[in-house]
């Protein structure tokens, strides 16, 4: 059974239909990429899934439970973590403190107004594990604001991971990285996602990244799904080629 189900998800802004009747499923262990030209509705789709925006129509189900109507914080509490296209960190805290605060959010005693040694201990352990998996252990004590852009992007992922989510929404994880940094990030992500315990939705512009990471691809064009399938199927789809003018047939080679 699919972990995440979107059914007829629609969002209008005035007269503009940003997301139009999108239906898709993501199962545990699956990495699904959502691609499409600028303005295709990818970020709006994320915002609909994690509750930043209410849908105009349709619904989102997570593990059988309806998410529509919940706040982003509540969605997060159920095991859906998200990274942002624009890096958002706590610049004056250390890398470890960033990840630890992320992990603390899933602790039942996260709000404890006194003591809290045990809470910090648990959060710290999860944070260190996540930093380790993303290869950030060596910068754990540095202020996050002083990291390189590439490491900051990875820290975004580490923070989401430290929350031990069941569904991970990755919004352009390689945004603004150099070719070399992108290569490394893709390697790291590939190892990470190979575990199979996570469901992942990936929004990404870089088609090479998409084809190396994704098992399934959903193609959005003007808010609507124009193709849905394995990378090979999508590459061969004439409608997609028309929409992209053959852009990613080249990129995939």
């Amino acid at each position, binding site marked *: 059974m699919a972990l995440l189900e979107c059914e007829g998800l629609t969002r209008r802004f005035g007269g503009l239909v940003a997301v139009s009747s999108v239906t898709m499923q993501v199962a545990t262990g699956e990495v699904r990429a959502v691609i499409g030209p600028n303005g295709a509705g990818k970020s709006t789709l994320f915002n609909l899934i994690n509750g930043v925006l209410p849908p105009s129509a349709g619904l989102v189900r997570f593990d059988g439970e309806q998410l529509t109507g919940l706040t982003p914080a*509540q969605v997060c509490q159920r095991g859906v973590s998200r990274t942002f296209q624009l890096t*958002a*960190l706590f610049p004056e*805290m250390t890398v470890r403190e960033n990840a630890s*605060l992320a992990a603390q959010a899933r*602790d039942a005693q996260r709000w*404890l107004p*006194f003591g809290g040694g045990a809470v910090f201990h648990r959060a710290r352990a999860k944070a260190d594990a996540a930093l380790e998996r993303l290869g950030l252990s060596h910068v754990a004590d540095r202020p996050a604001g002083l990291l390189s852009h590439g490491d900051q992007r990875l820290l975004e992922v580490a923070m989401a991971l430290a929350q031990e989510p069941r569904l991970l929404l990755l919004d352009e994880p390689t945004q603004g990285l150099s070719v070399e940094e992108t290569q490394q990030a893709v390697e790291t992500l590939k190892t990470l996602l190979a575990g199979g315990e996570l469901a992942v939705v990936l929004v990404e512009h870089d088609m090479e990244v998409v084809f190396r990471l994704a098992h399934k691809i959903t193609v959005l064009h003007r808010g609507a799904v124009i193709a849905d399938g394995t990378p090979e199927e999508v590459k061969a789809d004439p409608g997609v080629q028309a929409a992209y003018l053959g852009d990613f047939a080249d990129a995939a080679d």
Partner: protein
Amino acid sequence: MGAWRGLILVVAVLALAPLGLPPYMMTLLTEALILGLFAMSLDLMVGYTRLVSFGHAAAYGFGAYCSGWLLINTDLSLPSAVFVAAIASGVLAIGVAWVCTRSTGVSFSMLTLAFAQLLYAITFRWTSVTGGSDGLAGIPRRPGPFGLTALTSKTGFYFFVLGLLVAAFLLCRQLVNSPFGAVLRGIRENEAKTLALGYNTRAYKIAVVALSYALGGLAGALYAPFAGFANSELLFWLLSGQVLIMVIVGGAGTLIGPILGAAFFMFAQHQLSSYTESWAIYFGMLFIFFVLFVPRGIWGSVAARLRRPAADGR
């Protein structure tokens, strides 16, 4: 451990102060401790959560009027009246915070100011309770509970204030070091991210505003029986501005700094005004000097200097 030793030393010195200081200095010191408590309460919002309140006088004035009214019109003992007033301020703050936290940044500051000024206006209107523009006068330090009279003397009251300040400091200190405090730091540095991580940031903000107001109200509740009166100046925006400056001069986000800032403010004002009529000029210059040359505030700068050699040694 060094921190604990320092704290015990300072409290010991303060506890011995009545032996060595002349009465008028004890009066000043008592007032400085009350203002210190007031400034420290604001630091929870300003320094730890970056909720810049332009209306913190609302907490102080409300607490002062509450305890003043209770001491004049009921049989409550001094500690009970002070305690009830502090709780009432905290409860008031939940309403205030519920409205104010709908906004952020300058809008938040302006909303807090609007609330404080509304209270200020109400004290003028509601003459039967507040005494109008005269305020409440002749507020007693009533003995009790159980016939206890130790707190009603000047020295006894000083120890009462000192004890409450130390207790409030310890409370705040463990709060900012708790998981709750970690979330506040998150809100301070990046509220949108904290929200996205799954924290209900508004609930945290309302809680911290309530605690901040309760402690600010406690300070005001102590001021009324200390001075023997409560008037609308305790709610005026000028006091809100002054307490914010005490926090910044002392060092925001350090708890100790604002207490020092309040004491510095009080004694500087006292000293300057005994030398010169135009003390405000020097005071104004002092603020500008601080902003330009001591941007982290008194304790912020001291703490940075204390920390640096340790970091080098590592």
